């Protein structure tokens, strides 16, 4: 297992594409792992205290990582535990493994995620499980659980997998969704615009768009794309 702690409070954001794979490398490789801070190219050891405890494919991030981006980007197995907040693009393009964030997550959490699991104990920001600009599909597999609230644009163009939000979510949930499931225990804004498939299940209030029709206790749409997505009330 690899344990990282920020040496200082970061003013300028840091980009560190750390995946659990790194924990299996030797200490020197880990220390010299390339990271970025603004326009400077640095080594992991320049900004973080590093301690390696065995070869387990696991990373423990202790402290405030809210300005550290791309944690677990594209990871394919192993585990990352963040004892604090985490920056943007965490777990984006993830294929396998597990990320647990004990604090809050920033935008693009699990964007275009393909598999694995992300758990956020706090809140998540916007674009959770969404497609990156111009791409045709968002999250396609795996599971994201947010125990707090989430922001706007959740599960854009989602084709598979599950996003579950225990609190409230923002506006535009499951836009152009084609498959998979979004479960919201709290309330949210507009839901399912241009949805073709998949399910959005909501316990609280939400705003139904004038492009869904009621059918046997749930709503089906979006009629503008001849969609067969379902919006259901969570019982």
């Amino acid at each position, binding site marked *: 297992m690899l344990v990282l702690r920020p040496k200082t409070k970061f003013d300028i954001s840091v980009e560190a594409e750390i995946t659990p794979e790194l924990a299996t490398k030797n200490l020197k490789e880990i220390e010299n792992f390339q990271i970025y801070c603004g326009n400077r190219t640095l080594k992991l050891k320049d900004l973080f205290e590093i301690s390696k405890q065995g070869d387990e494919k696991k990373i423990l991030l202790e402290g405030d990582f809210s300005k550290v981006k791309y944690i677990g980007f594209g990871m394919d197995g192993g585990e990352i535990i963040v004892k604090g907040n985490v920056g943007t693009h965490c777990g984006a393009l993830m294929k396998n493994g597990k990320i647990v964030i004990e604090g809050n997550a920033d*935008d693009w959490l699990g964007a275009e995620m393909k598999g694995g699991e992300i758990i956020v104990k706090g809140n998540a920001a*916007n674009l959770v499980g969404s497609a990156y600009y111009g791409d045709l599909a968002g999250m396609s597999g795996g599971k994201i659980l947010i125990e707090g609230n989430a*922001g706007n*644009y959740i599960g854009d163009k989602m084709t598979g997998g599950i996003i579950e939000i225990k609190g409230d979510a923002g506006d535009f949930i499951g836009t152009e969704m084609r498959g998979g499931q979004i479960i919201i225990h709290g309330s949210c804004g507009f839901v399912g615009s241009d949805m073709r498939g998949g399910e959005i299940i909501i316990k609280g209030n939400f705003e139904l768009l004038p492009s869904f029709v009621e059918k046997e206790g749930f709503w089906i749409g979006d009629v503008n794309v001849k969609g067969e997505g379902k919006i259901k009330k969570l019982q």
Partner: protein
Amino acid sequence: MIEVELVTGRTLEQGATVEEKLTENYFYAVNYIELNEEDFASLKLKDGDRVKVKTKFGEVVVFAKKGDLPKGVAFMPLGPYANIVIDPNTAGTGMPKFKGVRAKIEKTEERVLSIRELLEVI
């Protein structure tokens, strides 16, 4: 005190003075809020009176005017006064929400800060 949906926008005066920001002309072009006539009356306002505009994001004192607006909608010219109270969250888009924020309006005797003073308190 009333609650309104606050929108901001361009005006001809704001535009015509936008390249002379530290002048009185600009000051008067951007330091007011327009309220629907009924809303205006309900606060017992007369022209030249000042109101405090409060939102989740800040508060600012400006002059009150009557405007051709639906009840419950208020308008401020875009500029530094409005920018104290609009919603700065960009919600994943990069764009703050300049239009459409819940605001509380109350009559006040506090004075309207100058542009320089406004920058000081930010």
